[in-house]
């Protein structure tokens, strides 16, 4: 199992009908979901219209007010060049979200290709792809990413691709398992009995039922991708200052950790909040997708 598979498994469990069997009603929005929703709204606004939340220039320096602790004027304090950290964190959202989304898209895309190959094209391909995945799994995530960066050089683009690559085997395995379980589902046989062709079955039953859960998976994956990408930035292999990317801000701030904790605290906080938001929302969406409304009684 990979962390993705854990996430998928947990989402699936959370999506199952209430185990107590007493209340089959899907819960209304809980505290966590509401909070996650508000945060997601904030993050999306930050990414799309950062000026709305933080009208300043994230790159504007002001050497005379460098290292200012959080205050009324600078809610999150300022950095070594007097840049406003709140402004930078808000403007940095787009980088982190784009990196997270792009990495997830790459991982998911590769995963879909590999998983579909393995799940659809018969035993030989399945065997080959499986062995290939096994090999990829022998490289723990960061190792694969480091190797990739070693070859193609550091930078935002390579870091994004590297994170995508290292998550691909996890996605591939989930997709393959999902495909195989859907392929042998009773409703697929029922479609055969109704005289549907292979292609009709593939397009109308197997693919929709395999790919729909991926939306949830992608939401969950974005959180982890952001954490990984930030780690690479932190190691100096991703985004570079003065870009307001959170990982880069955090690593820049770490230098001053003993004198200016706010420089690394707030970017880190946003990384964690984003990842948590993604997890909570992913599970919530999943639950809602499964529970269209109250299941009836037998």
């Amino acid at each position, binding site marked *: 199992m990979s962390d993705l598979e854990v996430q998928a498994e947990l989402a699936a469990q959370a999506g199952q009908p209430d185990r107590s069997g007493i209340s089959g009603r899907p819960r209304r929005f809980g505290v966590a979901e509401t909070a996650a929703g508000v945060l997601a709204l904030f993050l999306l606004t930050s990414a799309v219209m950062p000026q709305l939340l933080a009208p300043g220039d994230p790159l504007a320096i002001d050497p005379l007010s460098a290292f200012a602790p959080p205050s009324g004027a600078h809610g999150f304090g300022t950095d070594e060049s007097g840049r406003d950290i709140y402004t930078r964190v808000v403007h940095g959202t787009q980088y982190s979200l784009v990196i997270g989304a792009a990495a997830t898209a790459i991982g998911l895309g590769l995963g879909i290709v590999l998983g579909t190959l393995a799940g659809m094209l018969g035993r030989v391909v399945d065997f080959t792809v499986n062995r290939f995945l096994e090999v990829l799994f022998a490289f723990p995530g960061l190792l694969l990413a480091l190797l990739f960066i070693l070859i193609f050089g550091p930078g935002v683009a390579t870091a994004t691709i590297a994170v995508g690559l290292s998550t691909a085997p996890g996605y591939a395995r989930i997709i393959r398992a999902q495909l195989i379980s859907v392929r042998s589902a009773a409703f697929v046989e029922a479609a055969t009995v109704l005289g549907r062709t292979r292609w009709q079955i593939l397009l109308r039953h197997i693919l929709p039922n395999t790919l729909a859960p991926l939306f949830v998976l992608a939401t969950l994956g974005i959180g982890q991708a952001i954490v990984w990408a930030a780690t690479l930035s932190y190691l100096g292999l991703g985004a570079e200052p003065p870009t307001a990317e959170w990982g880069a801000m955090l690593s820049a701030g770490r230098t001053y950790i003993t004198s200016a904790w706010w420089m690394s605290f707030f970017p880190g906080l946003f990384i964690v909040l984003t990842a948590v938001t993604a997890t909570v929302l992913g599970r919530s969406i999943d639950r809602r997708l499964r529970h269209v409304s109250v299941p009836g*009684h037998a």
Partner: protein
Amino acid sequence: MNEPAAALSVRNLLVGFGAAAPVVRGVSFDIVPGECLAIVGESGSGKSVTARSLLGLAGANARVSADWLDLGGHSVLGLTEHAWQARRGRDVGLVLQDALVSLDPLRPIGREIADSLRLHTSLGAAARARRVLELLDAVGLPHPELQVQKLSGQLSGGERQRALIAAAIALNPPLLIADEPTTALDVTVQAQILALLEQITGGGTAVLLISHDLAVVSRIAHRVAVMHDGELVETGRTTQVLGSPEQEQTRRMVAAIPADKPRGTRLSEADTPNTPSLPSTRIDSSTEKTPDGTIVLEAIGLSKSFRRPDGTRQLAVDDVSFALRRGSTLGIVGESGSGKTTTARLLLALMAPDRGEVRVFGQPWTTATEKTRRGLRAGVGAIYQDALGSFDPRWSVAEILSDALGLGRQRRAPQTTARLTSLLDEVGLAATVLPRRPLELSGGQRQRVGIARALAGKPQLLICDEPVSSLDVTVQAQVLDLLDDVQRERGLSLIFISHDLGVVAHVSDQIAVMRAGRIVELGPAARVFAEPQHPYSVELLAAVPRLSV
């Protein structure tokens, strides 16, 4: 009936969860030692909640109250969890349905059985081990010394259930509560377990039997209490309740039992809310049915084997041959592992036989390519045990049915709606289910949608694999009636596969009895049911749940 010696005495039991309305209301009964009382009810009637409340296991958020609740003469109302722990296993034992999950699958059964001894006695390990062997012997498990180390997964269903009973009676509790103890079992095994429970009752233990199946409990219960919607609607001696039921619910349940009812007899009452349009005039039309002798489906020497995990091959279907004539029903009956489901899949050409072939409407079927077969598929419908699983979970009823009608998934066109409504009408469903997904339907509704889907292509042949096995008995009755109706209306030929000889006998013209992949007996239903030839058929017949009144 408030005898002083009652093993269990309950007055006005009320159980609720959270703030919701109580799910068990005003339940009162007593059981004396050596007596077997059965509480019978359908799913959701509150019978299991009642059973668990009697052990203090209704759950943390349960509200339990009663005028009194005496176990062995002592009140157990408001006992602390700690005090309950001392009583459970010692004063009362519990046997649950399906021992595969009711015994810890990770522990040897010997350990599970010894647990009660460990918790409530000061016996040493050796003494406990001896007692476990005695218990296994007492519940009729052969070679106890070989069995104690086995996991529940290594035992057969019957062996497991015996082990579970052994665990429950380890300390000879005066009261044994058995909650659906035979439900997942084959009929022959079911009969054995019932015999065991009867024997335990004979030994002076009070047994509270919980079941959905009147026929099952009628064999051993001295008294029956019928539960409906959280209340006991009728209580009395078994013969009396089943022989001359006074209440509506009881009557309906008794009527729904298919065994010994002639072909074509209605099992359900026509005015059930789900079947508003069923014309009752068809009840006595059975004699009009005239099979014309054309063979619509023929199995010729079918064989199919599978690889076992250890590499050897298991013959699942072994040289099976039969023929189905137009307008008739062939019932295939067998216990689990007899190969009946594999046969169904072969008949549907979902897998290819190793040897032999299936011909449909006189044309090659299993030997044809899927492409040529596809042309014939419309004539062959199928109904599955797991109706829910046979629907794409993303599709609504409207989508499922319009797809089956070959109209694609568009739902808006008026003529589509008209055809859907008439199709639903035929299976006794209202058009209100159209926008819903299968997950939102009840079990009976799902199976009706399944039948509607099978009928959509105007088939001449229906293959039904355990179509009613997971349904409550009254719902089962409705579905069986429905199948009977559509067969008549459309002149369908049916293959009806079930583990329940009673059901099969009720619906079939011909019966094939399968065992270990082979057909051991094949003949007209009436004859097989009346004078079975093969010893296995005799055994099956003997085990069929019927009302023994």
